[in-house]
């Protein structure tokens, strides 16, 4: 087992910024949606939700550029190799002494399950959240420009909200999965320092 620089400086910067932004969007979004909450006043929540939405989009632009130029996007290509093994590992193996069935290396950071989930996020949930969010923001102008006066805002809101709920589901799952590394804190440490041990079965 060898220590490698698993996450580059940019990758960690991007990850933690994104976490903070999504958390902020979640809190402000919740305050907008459930006005009974008193985390923030409504106007401030709206204002911050917009500020963080733009921050989110700005960061995404950098992240997309980074993914393309570094070739890291390939890490997210889905594979069904060992997919069954992964499911079995989480359902059974993890409670025994079984070793992780897929080896995590610098060039193959993501196991087949992670690939699927993260890819789904990048091409589905994030774009849907951002697009519906932008549509939400500019709905009156969009309606006027494209003659969509009869399309109700509720449609945009429902999409945005459904995606936001899935986001929360992801967050819970994600937070829990952090603890399933070699040790409870190993994954967290790796994303902070960048250093991780390549581990897991050498072949699937």
């Amino acid at each position, binding site marked *: 087992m060898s220590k490698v620089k698993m996450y580059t400086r940019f990758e960690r910067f991007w990850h933690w910024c994104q976490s903070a932004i999504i958390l902020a969007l979640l809190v402000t979004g919740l305050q907008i949606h459930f006005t009974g909450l008193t985390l923030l006043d409504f106007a401030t929540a709206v204002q911050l939700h917009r500020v963080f939405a733009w921050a989110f989009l700005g960061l995404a632009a950098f992240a997309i550029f980074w993914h393309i130029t570094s070739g890291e996007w390939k890490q997210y290509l889905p594979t069904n190799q060992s997919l069954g093994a992964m499911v079995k590992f989480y359902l059974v193996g993890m409670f025994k002494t079984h070793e992780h069935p897929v080896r995590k290396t610098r060039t193959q950071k993501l196991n087949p399950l992670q690939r699927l989930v993260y890819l789904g996020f990048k091409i589905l949930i994030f774009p849907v959240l951002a697009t519906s969010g932008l549509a939400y923001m*500019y709905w009156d102008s969009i309606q006027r420009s494209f003659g969509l006066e009869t399309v109700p805002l509720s449609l945009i809101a429902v999409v945005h909200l459904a995606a936001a709920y899935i986001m929360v589901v992801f967050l819970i*799952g994600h937070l829990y999965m952090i603890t399933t590394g070699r040790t409870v804190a190993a994954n967290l440490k790796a994303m902070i320092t960048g250093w991780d041990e390549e581990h897991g079965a050498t072949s699937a």
Partner: protein
Amino acid sequence: MRTKWTVLVGVVGALGAGALGLTSAPGQPAGQAGVLPAAAPAPAQPVVGGRGESTADHSTFEVLQQDFKTGPEVTAACLTCHTDAAQQLMKTSHWTWLSTDQTTTTAAGEAVPFGKGARVINNFCIAVPGNEPRCTSCHIGYGWKDSSFDFSNQNLVDCLVCHDSTGKYKKFPTAAGHPVYADTPDEQREWPKGSGKFWEPAPLREIAQSVSMPSRQNCGECHFFGGGGEGVKHGDMDESLATPALHVDVHMSPDGADMHCIACHTTHSHKVSGRYYEQAAYDERSFVLRGSPHESNLLACESCHTQWPHQTAAREGKDVKNAARLDAHQDRVSCQACHIPTMARERPTKMWWDWSKAGEKNEDGTPKKVMVDTKGTKTPQYDMQKGEFIWVLDENPEYRWFNGNTKQVFIDTKIDDTTPGKDRGKVTGLWSKIDLDKPIADINTLLGDANDPKARIWPVKVHRGIQPYDAGNKTLVAPKLFPGAGDKAAAYWKAFDWQKATEAGMKENNAPYSGQLGWIQTEMNWPLAHMVAPAEDAVGCVECHSTNGRLAGLEGLYIPGRDRNMLVEYAGMGLIGLTLLGAVSHGALRVLTSGSRK
């Protein structure tokens, strides 16, 4: 973008110019101090919002050095110079009390004009014809006692009620538009009747010599008292607007812009702009270039404030959160909805009028009268002549979709007297005794709904009540209330007999009456547009963006914070629950089996 900036520069320029005018206008005498005769009245203060200060000192005019005996004598003098003024005025609804641009079709298929002078019915004192000398005390003429009034006599136009600057000119409430004159007998000067208070004659000479552009007080002389008393009709107009405090009206307050009514109700050839029954106040909501041939009126807020008022304010350095978001509300929300936070902010307004309860006497036979306390102000709750009332002070209005147009019920309009109100989506409002299981007739309908791109959410005073109707013909009726002219003995306030009063009233309205008198609940909408509060008093976000807020019952649009799609909510919450459960049980299993891991 470019045009946007051009407009903004224009606004700033216009505002700047306005501000300069404001600072220089008050206190500056209209006449030349040097040539004023010794006994001249105080010079009129120029009215801001008028078309500039006067270049003529009326106190120097020979024709006005008279001891006028009557109003028409004054008018005759005015007309010697202002040759076209009366003719201009006679074309306006201030004179005709009829719509000038629109007509309605009678049952016989005839297109006729309508207005407070004919065919229109309300749920206050119900109708003008038959009640003239009282109602017509607010007519811009002299002597409209009954239907024989000569609408072509120029000397009968009352110049002074609009142009008096002394505050001493008042039309006597029952004198068909005349003030009190030196030779008016005592019994015709006492008001209220039996109070022992007698009006002084109007000093016509002084008044004529100091005329000026109409001020808030002039317009208010009639418009603050619609319905025959202060604040009866409008929920946004009463005497407090003569010199309003800043929190009452940011535009008209001397501590604010000190604007007068005609600043927005722009006037051309004596035609004052404004909404009149079914006629909308304005068609377009956009910045108006002053002085251009296309200038119509400045009634829309956007005429001065543009369609980006919040962003403009933010650029000027004002502390406006979410300026762009607030501006974006304007497609669905009227400016008035947020900026007129409450109605009747200073003086009470009437919300409920049940005519069916009228006629009760005290045990000793005297007319029954009950006053109640409304937030510290005494308001009538019962009056033998009129029935039962509810008044309110400083309360939230109701909110309705409104595209600027209304549909009016006329004296011959068939009403629905069977469908219960609740089946027509009616609500009781907070201050009425409406029974939703019984029918409710609409005196007027605000047109537009959520699907109408021109409709926006408006604050509305909804005046509800119970009034007589013709159960045979299914029309509202216009009873004769005031015993001023015509069949005086039949008037309700003389005989206290609804049947007689209705027969007489309908006759004087030239309308059929089946003889079957019934009572019906009615509601009348009064969209609010005055009493715009300072920006910091605007309605806050969560007053509407919340489940139980001001817009709780408003249908047809999605309001973030108010509305939710329950399918998404339950599915989302369910998924979150399952995920949490999964994580917790997985974690627990890991802990439990951790012995076997090491």
